[in-house]
């Protein structure tokens, strides 16, 4: 019993570590295609995250820098040693804009998803657990929002908030577009978990609803969220780029944005100038692909149904070990 008491002190820390270990177990055990997807996607995503975090260090120039030591950069210059990805019509360096663009993209998307999760998940939990009138109203609202194409909602919000700061506007627009998704996913899962015997048992123990939701429902429901959030991030990048392309997103003074750059590059293309559009475009494709691979990889590893498919790589021994123990002293009976 003394051993028990002393170990109780480190109980919380140990329990958390154990829980973490268990949660990541399927990821560590991933094999084959899922593993490849997971780690490739992670690598790409991490690459862009690094770009975003250390943009000021990595990038040779600032995103709106069109001169250096008083000398204006060449306009629409071919990729060269000085400007690895060329320059735009405004004499800004394309590579700088790509790198700084990563920061903008990730900033907006992270804020937006964080807000969407903070609103969508709790609403989904409460709505799913308690049901009733609140649930019906929320579902009606969320389904209505869900019915609109993301882009449309985002444009409307961006339009309505035109006076507000660019990054926040874009983030809010994206948030509103995606809250229904998280709400729906979480709510549906809660409804099925709610009927599980262990939730019933919790009520029978005398737990209050908020305890039940917190300890019994939340953890079992939340494991669905990371793959969805990752795939969602990919989608959000595209959405942001679309907003920027249409001119509703970040203002050029606030930061570089890939979609905006592509918009500017459209007119360049007719003149045979390919670098102003290609590199931002590639950046979008690469980041979105990376996030998608990561998300699908997570889905494959975490989702138990998909996991089972990849087993079965074993060989049958010539004979089961038991048979090997026998020295045939007598002939086998008929």
């Amino acid at each position: 019993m003394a051993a028990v008491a002393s170990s109780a002190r480190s109980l919380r820390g140990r329990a958390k570590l154990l829980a973490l270990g268990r949660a990541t177990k399927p990821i560590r055990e991933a094999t084959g295609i899922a593993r490849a997807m997971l780690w490739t996607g992670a690598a790409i995503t991490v690459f862009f995250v690094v770009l975003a975090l250390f943009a000021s260090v990595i990038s040779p120039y600032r995103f709106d820098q069109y001169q250096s030591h008083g000398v204006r950069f060449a306009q629409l210059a071919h990729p060269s040693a000085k400007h690895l990805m060329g320059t735009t019509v405004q004499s800004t360096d394309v590579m700088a804009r790509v790198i700084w663009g990563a920061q903008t993209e990730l900033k907006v998307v992270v804020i937006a998803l964080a807000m969407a999760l903070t609103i969508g998940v709790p609403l989904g939990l409460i709505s799913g657990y308690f049901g009733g009138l609140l649930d019906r109203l929320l579902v009606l609202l969320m389904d209505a929002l869900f019915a609109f194409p993301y882009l449309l909602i985002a444009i409307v919000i961006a339009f309505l908030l035109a006076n507000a700061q660019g990054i926040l506007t874009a983030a809010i627009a994206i948030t509103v577009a995606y809250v229904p998704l998280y709400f729906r996913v979480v709510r549906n899962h809660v409804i099925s978990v709610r009927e599980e015997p262990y939730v019933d048992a919790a009520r029978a123990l005398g737990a209050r609803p908020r305890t039940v939701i917190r300890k019994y429902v939340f953890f079992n429901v939340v494991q669905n969220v990371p793959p969805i959030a990752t795939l969602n991030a990919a989608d959000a990048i595209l959405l942001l780029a679309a907003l920027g392309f249409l001119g509703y997103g970040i203002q050029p003074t606030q930061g570089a944005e890939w979609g905006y750059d592509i918009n500017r590059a459209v007119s360049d293309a007719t003149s045979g100038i390919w670098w102003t559009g290609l590199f931002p475009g590639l950046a979008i494709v690469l980041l979105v692909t990376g996030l998608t691979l990561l998300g699908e990889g997570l889905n494959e590893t975490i989702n138990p149904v998909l996991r089972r498919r990849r087993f079965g790589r074993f060989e049958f021994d010539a004979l089961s070990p038991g048979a090997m123990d026998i020295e045939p002293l007598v002939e086998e009976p008929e």
Partner: protein
Amino acid sequence: MSGEPLLSVRNLRVYYGTPGRPVRAVDGVSLDIGEAEVVGLVGESGCGKSTLGRGVIGLLPEGARAHGEVVYGGRNLVGLPPKALRALRGPELGLIFQEPMTRLNPLMRISDHFRETLEQHERRLTNREIRRRSLETLGRMGIPPTRFRQYPHEFSGGMRQRIMIALALVLRPKLLVADEPTTSLDVIVEGQILALLADLKRNFSTSLILVTHNLGIVAESCDRVAVMYAGKIVEEGPARNVFAEPSHPYTRELLRSTISLDTTELHSIPGAPPNLIDPPSGCRFHPRCPEIMAVCRERAPIETHPEPGRRALCWLHGPDGAIPPGGRQRLEREAIAVAEEA
């Protein structure tokens, strides 16, 4: 059992893949099923009976692989191309599940289910014949023709099970595998369904493999029984004989543990079924066996015939020649750590 067996299982192994070493769910099983015979496959959870039952007709889940022989109609079903196996499943081999709703499409009427099954496997039947065959089979299962065009959800659990059995039987298969067909049903309905199943051989000349954990229903409805433990058949023979005088200690212990109206003592088997990834050395039951001998720990038992028509996998029945000197010495069953209790 007279004549050639209908189906012959020889040294069948079915393993399930895992991130580590495979689970040896069925580990070297041989069994013959005769014509018009009801064979019970009985054991506790994890013994491999369900895997064996499904493995016999080639319906294994993803990640499972089979090795060995399942000889039917002169062909080995293990390794048969999926298309050929599918052609057999239905007209020759059938499966009944535990949950009747899994096979019945909630969006299709019962009549549609039958039509689809018959059209797929017996193309030359006219509509009238399809209806007649369906109604006849359903009638034998106690489903009235007035309900032929209803949907599955309009039937109770027991009736759905009857419908599923009828659906399997309408093609007149030679062999039916029933995987825990009555486990989810109430006891009176269970009795009704078992009566139907026990009569299959008489009414349809169909053989039945009845997979269950319930010794009582096996004793009442089966001709022969095979008792499974940890992926192996530890005892097999005519049901009456096996239950009246079991040869294997596990069968004995299982019978004693079964709580029925006649039981006067509560009895259980210490310990828990073994890990199938890494089963115990020697006889797999030895850690829990009340009659363990020295040899049981060292060597896996050889199959013997304590009587004609019966098999046992237990050193208590020899063969004497294979037991090394001192092997017959009785040991104390090792104190099972409380932590290993089920």
